[in-house]
């Protein structure tokens, strides 16, 4: 039996809104992700998909339920070790966010940003860190010359590749990508996803991809869940769900995807 990278049992997350109401962002969600698997989370805005993966990354505290990362209870370890466990989590789980413009420090060049991560995580000398960072950026197709430009002079696709290099430089066991391609050109999406998948193959990484785009999920993942209003409405093998959806909501999502059938043009 393969190892479980993520085990979520009956997870609920409740937020207090500014008006004092409670919002149940995630309701009684259970799921498992095998180590080395590419796992998809699909849903529309407000479905709770981002909250779910933020819990996995240790950015949001669960209200109820249990979340285990490689057998370690996220909640438990936080209570026992406080801040130290967060550091532990950070090295295990890395995230790539939707908006590459706001997730990178505008004052740091990509080379500086990645060097910092390498130096902290891999405990290398300043010079070796720089070399390692340049190599990591080269791996995602950012040349050393490009890597010394400030983020604002780079395109969205290039910045997203920098974010990916930075996440991988921390040597994570789990990589979470929250809408990694929705802010970039269609022509660049396949490239970013291929780089993500390349990382799984080469390092045995576990990847969780969050997207509202069913084509992205279909191209990259083997298992998936569909979320709606905080709940999982369908879970299973990606190919199965995308070809024979059982939940009415999944069917509606699939029908709304443009360009899947030819319609009479007039």
């Amino acid at each position, binding site marked *: 039996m393969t190892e479980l990278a993520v085990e979520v049992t009956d997870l609920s997350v409740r937020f207090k809104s500014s008006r004092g109401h409670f919002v149940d962002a995630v309701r009684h969600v259970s799921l498992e992700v095998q180590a080395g698997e590419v796992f998809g989370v699909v849903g*529309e*805005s407000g479905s709770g998909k981002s909250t779910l993966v933020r819990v996995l990354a240790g950015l949001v505290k669960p209200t109820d339920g249990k979340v285990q990362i490689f057998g370690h209870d996220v909640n438990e370890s936080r209570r026992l070790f406080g801040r130290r466990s967060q550091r532990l989590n950070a090295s295990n789980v890395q995230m790539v966010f939707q908006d590459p413009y706001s997730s990178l420090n505008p004052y740091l060049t990509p080379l500086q940003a990645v060097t910092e991560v390498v130096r902290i995580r891999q405990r290398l000398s300043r010079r070796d860190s720089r070399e390692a960072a340049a190599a990591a950026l080269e791996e995602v197709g950012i040349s050393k010359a490009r890597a010394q430009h400030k983020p604002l002079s780079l*395109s*969205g*696709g*290039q910045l997203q590749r920098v974010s990916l290099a930075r996440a991988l430089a921390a040597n994570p066991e789990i990589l979470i990508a929250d809408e990694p391609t929705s802010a970039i*050109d*269609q*022509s*660049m*999406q*396949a*490239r970013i*996803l*291929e780089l993500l*998948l390349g990382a799984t193959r080469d390092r045995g990484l576990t990847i969780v991809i969050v997207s*509202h*785009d*069913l*084509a*992205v999920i*279909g*191209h*990259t993942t083997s298992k998936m869940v569909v979320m709606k209003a905080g709940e999982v409405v369908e879970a299973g093998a990606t190919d199965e769900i*995308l*070809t024979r959806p059982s939940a009415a909501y999944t069917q*509606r*999502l*699939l*029908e*709304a*995807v*443009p*360009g*899947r059938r*030819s*319609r009479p*043009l*007039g």
Partner: protein
Amino acid sequence: MSDVVDPVVVVRNLTVSVPHDSGSIAVLDGAELTVNSGSRLGLVGESGSGKSMLCRAILGTLHRHDARVSGGTIHIQGRDASFFNDSDWHRLRGTVLGYVSQASLAGLNPTLTVRRHLVHAARAVMALDTRSAERCALEAIEMVELPRANRILDEYPSQLSGGMRQRVVIASALLQRPKLLVADEPTTALDVTVQKSIMDLLVRLTTSLGMSLVLVTHDLALVEEYTNEVVVLYAGATVEAGRTGDVLNDPRHPYTQALQSSRLRLGDKKLTSGMWLPGAPPQPGEWPQGCRFTPRCPHAQDVCSSGGQPRLEAVLSVRRTACIRSEEVFGT
């Protein structure tokens, strides 16, 4: 639908430049576009290809972005736009040209109700008393198929969902029933089911109002599903134009072909390497000699990098491409 068969907008060999250091650089050079009456046209290209600039040129708002037409022609309903003054453009915007900008969703003032938004917008362009302006606002809200129109009018943008806000934005562009609606990425920030409802609405409106639509997007799936003509822009020039089905199913320019093959589609096999275009589109001011796509083109030969950007030439019957090797590469 009507007896008007003239194109609403014709753009020929357009050059648009912006000031740069001491001189100027071209952001469009060789842009071509014809919007036929009642047609839905997709304007596609990667970021930086000049899609938004071309829209501004059509709408007469280039000066707001420090840009100006430095070559070529624009005709609006058969009239040469180079003779238009500010008040001509002002009159055309709203009555002939409607615009839903990329930023307009965020541009709704949070302190105004929907009613005040629309009444403001209506009175800014038409001499109306308050009551007629309100009736105009109500009609516009009904036109975009928002339920309980009267209640919506009294709500603030923050009380509406993203899809409803986009309908309000569309309503304000439709106040004067324009002949052409330019929608710049109207559904980018929306969920897929909401996107479908907005696109379906736009298609119904083109029919019911006899209006043309220019849909600006980088999403070829949207173009495939909702338009009947397409213009492909690369580095400031139109590289291919024709009927959507023809162009997407049987591209005659290597750039169109590359865009098509980099698409992720539902039901396709898993991701394969070699799906994407190498490199990035060149920035204005850094366009290469000859065909601007040459550095990224798998079919490029020496002949492609001499001279200037190839002009659009007719291929097949109703198609035009700017690739000089089109026949060799794609056959006839």
